[in-house]
């Protein structure tokens, strides 16, 4: 139990520091244009990595499973400009059906 509390406490403190680092160290000062342009492209980069890690990996292994297919179906439906919640629902239903069949 000690390990649990130590881990939670220390991670909370470090996490606080990481999240505060940019706003505290940089303050509200204007950033150079070049940096602003990099920052504008961070969102598509990080979002892609989050999706890839969430849907195509299981720890260190690459995988394709019902969840992967469900997310792909949701994505294709969204790209076709179907409303968000309908697309997400269709993706979840796809994964659920695949798991029943399998």
């Amino acid at each position: 139990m000690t390990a649990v509390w130590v881990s939670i406490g220390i991670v909370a403190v470090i996490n606080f520091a990481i999240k505060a680092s940019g706003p505290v160290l940089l303050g509200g000062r204007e950033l150079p244009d070049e940096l602003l342009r990099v920052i504008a492209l961070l969102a598509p980069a990080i979002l892609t990595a989050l999706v890839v890690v969430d849907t195509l990996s299981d720890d260190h292994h690459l995988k394709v499973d019902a969840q992967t297919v469900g997310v792909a179906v949701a994505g294709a439906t969204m790209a076709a400009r179907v409303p968000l919640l309908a697309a997400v629902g269709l993706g979840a239903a796809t994964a659920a059906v695949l798991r029943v069949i399998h």
Partner: protein
Amino acid sequence: MTRDDSFRDGIRIGIGFALPGFVLAVSFGVLARDLGWGVVAPIVASIIVFSGSAQFAIANVLGAGGSAAAAIVAAVLVNARFAPMSVALASALKGGRVRRALEAQLNVDASWAIANRGDGPFDRELMIGSTLPQLVAWVGGTVVGVFAGDAIGDPDRLGLDVIFPAFFLWLLIEELRRGRQQVQAAAIAGAVALLLIPFTPPGVPIVASCVGALVALRGRSSR
């Protein structure tokens, strides 16, 4: 858009992310309780860590018999992406150091991406608005998982594990519609993440994917 409008918009979008967050928090509560964390520790973790990826990292390492040190390293690596993300957010926050540090804690993945308006500073009100429902759902879901996890069964059976990445994918598609540089940054980021997943600790592929932003930008300025 006025600040109030931004804040309300944020809350509305945040409610969409609150549902998958709630489901994920329930599964964290169940996992932590099954690992023998008791009732209080998982709930405290969701309040003071408030990060799914870090909390699952701790649970997974300790659950596999790892030390506290290993759990801390894993969780910090997984959340290292918040360093560059916090730099991006810096000029949007207000007030003195203490207030900025506190507001910066409301930076979570979905809200950060929502608050990114492309060029110019992030939208502070949009970020704060969208985090609030997610915070309520995260802590609430953990409480439900800890106390009533058995009654719920396996959420994956219903395909609920699709919801979170699908919402991220929606944010990504919005980004990709902004222009070609965004598409390049995403393509490189995805390739880097795929290449690194088998070889690096979890979290590293996400941090390394930031290189996609640099390369996409360089490609443009050299043309």
